[in-house]
């Protein structure tokens, strides 16, 4: 199909597709008035039973934790796919003279300060996910921002020494296995897989909400390590 024919097909198809979507959307309730039974049940049950503030975190890491397990496995598989694709390197010239631009001292100083702040904020987000907006995934990627800054300031080889690939892979696997292990803890406690088997604690305290902070931390570790692997694979491509 030539480019011109493709353009004509799109010009016919796109308005038809938009009209179909518009017809589908017109069948929804008016914007801002949808109230589902599932949502009302969750909103009344979650803060009371799990003593949790962040209802979205309770949905993601407790009530629908099985979906989050699938999502983490998707992330794991995709990172494995990227590593598989990019790790076969021609010529093995990994120690050749790097042609990267050396960062200036100002960039290095700023990156050092912001790296520390990024790690602190990322760990806070991951650990406080059940009390305020945040959670494992957001905290994990925010911690990754520290590694991005480090890479910008220090270059590929120092980043490889700071976060060696074996350690990062081990962290990623530990995060994924930790999620599974916490889920199996529910089975050992005599109930279903991913059942919330820790005590709910006091509302608003750091050890409330049972298993949610642990799962959140495991997810954060896996996400941070997974994206760090992606970053290091892409960065090593530039050393070819």
């Amino acid at each position, binding site marked *: 199909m030539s*480019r011109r024919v*493709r*353009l004509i097909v*799109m010009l016919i198809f*796109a308005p038809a*597709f*938009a009209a179909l*979507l*518009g017809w589908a*959307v017109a069948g*929804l309730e*008016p*914007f*801002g*008035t*949808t*109230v*589902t039974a*599932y*949502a009302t049940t*969750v*909103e009344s049950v*979650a*803060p009371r039973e799990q003593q*949790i*503030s*962040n*209802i*979205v975190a309770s*949905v*993601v890491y407790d009530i*629908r934790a099985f*979906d*989050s397990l699938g*999502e983490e496995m*998707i*992330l794991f598989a*995709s*990172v494995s*796919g*990227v590593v598989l*694709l*990019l790790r076969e390197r*021609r010529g093995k010239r990994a120690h050749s003279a790097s042609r990267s631009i050396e960062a200036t001292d100002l960039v290095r100083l700023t990156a050092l300060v912001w790296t520390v702040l990024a790690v602190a904020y990322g760990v806070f987000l991951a650990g406080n996910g059940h009390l*305020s*907006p945040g959670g494992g*995934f957001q905290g994990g990627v925010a911690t990754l921002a520290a590694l991005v800054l480090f890479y910008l300031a220090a270059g590929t080889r120092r980043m490889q020494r700071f976060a060696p690939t074996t350690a990062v892979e081990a962290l990623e696997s530990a995060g994924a296995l930790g999620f599974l292990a916490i889920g199996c803890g529910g089975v050992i406690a005599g109930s279903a897989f991913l059942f919330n088997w820790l005590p709910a604690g006091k*509302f608003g305290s750091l050890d409330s909400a049972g298993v949610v902070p642990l799962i959140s931390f495991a997810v954060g570790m896996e*996400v941070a390590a997974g994206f760090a692997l*992606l970053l290091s*694979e*892409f960065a090593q*491509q530039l050393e*070819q």
Partner: protein
Amino acid sequence: MTLPAVLHFLPYGVAIWLAVVGLFGLTRSRNFIHLTLCLTILQASTYLLLLSVGYRTGGQPPIARGATAAPFVDPIVQALTLTDIVVGATVTALLLSMAVQLHNRGVSLDPESEKPFRK
């Protein structure tokens, strides 16, 4: 002064617009990385659609503060959107790595080139 009908359709309208625009960019793209970014726009339309379905006028963000009687915005749809964002980022990373590997093998990054195996 207010146009309630237009304003109530606007979130869905923008989601549909983003979907169509992203799809259009996909078919007209001449570079695999440009194509991947158009796919990101298509995915963003789904985030907007999901959150617009769950929105509640006068609703609070779903953070419980003890005993409040305020109606909450739907939290289930927000959990779905969170998963959507994660999967979108990982799919984009995988597509980018495929583009890089194509470049490493000497294949042209133009989807429409007549001789793809010679750069």
